[in-house]
């Protein structure tokens, strides 16, 4: 039972990341009609905003380590600690949350620049051409990050106050020793908040209403004198922010490298297909569902019967959905159906 609860939380956690990326993907597809293979790169860029913030806060001066006598060794002491003492240390320890705040404007700018600088020229091109150009863009962005930060994963820490584990067992009346890492719970909570915020923005604001109208019938909205293209540009920016936040928040869980976006991109496309191309609730539901299924597939008892099933379960489900319901779980009738 303990293990089942933890696997459920693991699944929701992973599902949160899938859902956030898939949400942005499907938002862009629904509004702009663009199949954006560079979306994983936005996740990766968000993660490297966190890495950059951490590196910036850790800018250090080298101080001689007197405890080493047989050669000259040095300790890196961050300037923030030299200038502000314990306050400086606390600021550095909180680099992950600071990075999340910084990621919002940075990723919005990145998204706007990407849409205005490249994506808009491909609105009326075929999906194949869109895939080619966005995939190429993803590779270029990955290589730029590789040149700047190297090819190896760079570990990031959660603030000490949430670096430990939460007593989830006692919360649910189970074993008191049952714990779950705080940061993973925070990630899950933030995923829900971000998804809720996007839905609320689209559902309850006039801006969102126009966007939804544009998604349903772009031409009519245009005929009403609304500059729908400008709104869609902002939507692309929002999608970039969502993916970037997902990436920035994920860094204390898995150390990011230049390839992390690609790892998530493929799975997220599967999530979008399972949820239904262009369906926002579908993307979110499928993200969490597939995360949980993947997590339960990795339970020892399951793997004893079907070895390696955890590695392929998501793809098996995608095949099953495509065969039986090509429009996906919550997709609109006609989409992806002949």
């Amino acid at each position, binding site marked *: 039972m303990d293990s089942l609860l933890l696997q459920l939380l693991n699944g929701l956690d992973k599902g949160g990341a899938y859902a956030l990326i898939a949400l942005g993907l499907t938002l862009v597809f629904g509004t702009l009609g663009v199949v954006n293979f560079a979306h994983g790169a936005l996740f990766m860029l968000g993660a490297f905003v966190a890495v950059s913030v951490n590196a910036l806060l850790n800018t250090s001066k080298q101080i001689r380590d007197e*405890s080493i006598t*047989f050669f000259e*060794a040095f300790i890196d002491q961050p300037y923030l600690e030299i200038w502000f003492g314990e306050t400086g240390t606390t600021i550095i320890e909180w680099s992950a949350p600071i990075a999340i705040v910084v990621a919002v404007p940075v990723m919005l700018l990145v998204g706007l620049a990407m849409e205005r600088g490249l994506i808009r020229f491909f609105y009326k091109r075929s999906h194949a051409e869109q895939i080619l150009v966005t995939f190429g863009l993803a590779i270029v962005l990955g290589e730029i990050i590789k040149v700047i930060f190297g090819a190896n994963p760079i570990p990031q820490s959660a603030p000490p106050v949430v670096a430990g584990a939460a007593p989830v067992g006692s919360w649910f009346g189970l074993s008191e020793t049952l714990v779950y890492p705080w940061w993973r719970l925070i990630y899950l909570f933030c995923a829900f908040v971000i998804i809720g915020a996007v839905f609320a923005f689209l559902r309850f604001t006039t801006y969102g209403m126009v966007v939804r109208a544009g998604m349903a019938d772009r031409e009519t909205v245009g005929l009403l004198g609304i500059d729908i293209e400008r709104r869609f540009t902002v939507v692309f920016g929002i999608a970039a922010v969502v993916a970037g936040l997902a990436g920035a928040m994920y860094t204390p869980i898995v150390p990011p490298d230049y390839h992390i976006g690609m790892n998530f991109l493929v799975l997220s496309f599967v999530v979008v297909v399972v949820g239904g191309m262009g369906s926002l609730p579908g993307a979110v539901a499928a993200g969490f569902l597939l995360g949980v299924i993947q997590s339960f597939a990795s339970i020892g008892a399951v793997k004893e019967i079907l070895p390696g099933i955890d590695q392929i379960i998501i793809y098996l489900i995608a095949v099953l959905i495509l065969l039986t319901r090509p429009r996906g779980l919550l997709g609109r009738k006609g989409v992806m159906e002949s």
Partner: protein
Amino acid sequence: MSSFNRSTTRRRVLKGGAVLAGGAVLAPTVFTRGAWAEAFRNNPGDAGSVTLGFNVPQTGPYADEGADELRAYQLAVKHINGEGDGGMLNTMQPLALKGNGILGKKVEYVTGDTQTKSDAARASAKRMIERDGVVMVTGGSSSGVAVAVQSLCQDMGVIFMAGLTHANDTTGKDRRRYGFRHFFNAHMSAAALGPVLEAQMGKERRSYMLTADYNWGWSVEGSMTQVTENMGWETVSQVRTPLGAGDFSQYITPVLDSGADVLVLIHYGKDMVDSLTQAVQFGLRDKQVNGRNFEVVVPLYSRLMAQGAGKNVAGIYGSTNWHWSLQDAGTQAFVKSFGQEYGFPPSQAAHTCYVQALLYANAVESVGTFYPVEVIKFLEGFEFDGMGNGPTLYRAEDHQCFKPVLVVKGNENPSSQFDLLEVVQEVPTEQITYPHDLYAGDLGPYDV
């Protein structure tokens, strides 16, 4: 005339003919002695320099080890060429090197990135041999890579001095005549760790193994299972995890209610850092199972991993090939030299690679030729000392080095930023030695 007639008897003609025939047969070997020296791959001939190939992981889960290996190789080249303070050349016995390169040729090097992938490592080694003309390939931080490159080197007739490779296969079923391993192996780790674990944790334990899913992981898993079960432990489960998984939460979670009270983490490099950190985050270290404290064991430990995992390593047992805090003259010379060059002490990966480079150079200097067959014959059964591990033997039958193994524990009260592992016991060579045919394999021919 009569004298001529006397001298040209049939017997004398036959005798003279026999001498001439014998001379004709012998002449080629007399005048072309050493001609084989021209006939091997990448013979440096009269060139003023010779090139070595350093094939290390510069990217991937073992990149930290790779970076340290490269530092060690660069230091070794300096010392062989007579630059710097000489490092272990001051302590190595027996020593033929003179500090003027190898056989008077300046040592140069090329580097490659194995990416911790067998195919990439083979491609890189092939490039070094074919394009750069290296006389020896060395490096690597993965047994999958070591086995693949070793096999290539055997086929191409170039000596491979393995870097960090710990699977039994490397000098077991996949041993090769042209491959040599200074590093210890999974069998030795298990043999050294077993008695210490029994003394510290008792005989009634239930272990859960998370294993990196490639030949090194399988090898350690096999050796650890054998040793722990022989001392009375029960193996609850053995779960294979993909290399470079990053997030190990889905593998760690099932440990919690498996009934196991020991987690054996058969991971290395960044994988170990990630899995151990996540195991601690999931509360395993604070858990009590079967009335006992939950324990974590890391069969193959390194200072670099301890550095990455930080406080999480405190109190965790493992084994290591060498540690910078050893007090012998060889270790001190190397640590001083390395520390002055780079500002921190070397890792075990750096140590084994530095030693391998010196051993190869010394072998060539000793036999007076780069001809691999002669170098191989010299290294087979070579006994040496002063290189950090005490008296060491390169066993002829499988090209495995035999020397004491260190059992270490994550330091709970470090005295400096590098004081991360505490040497619990230096296990003598006799305790970890095993018959060469325990892991059957065929070295293959000298001439390829």
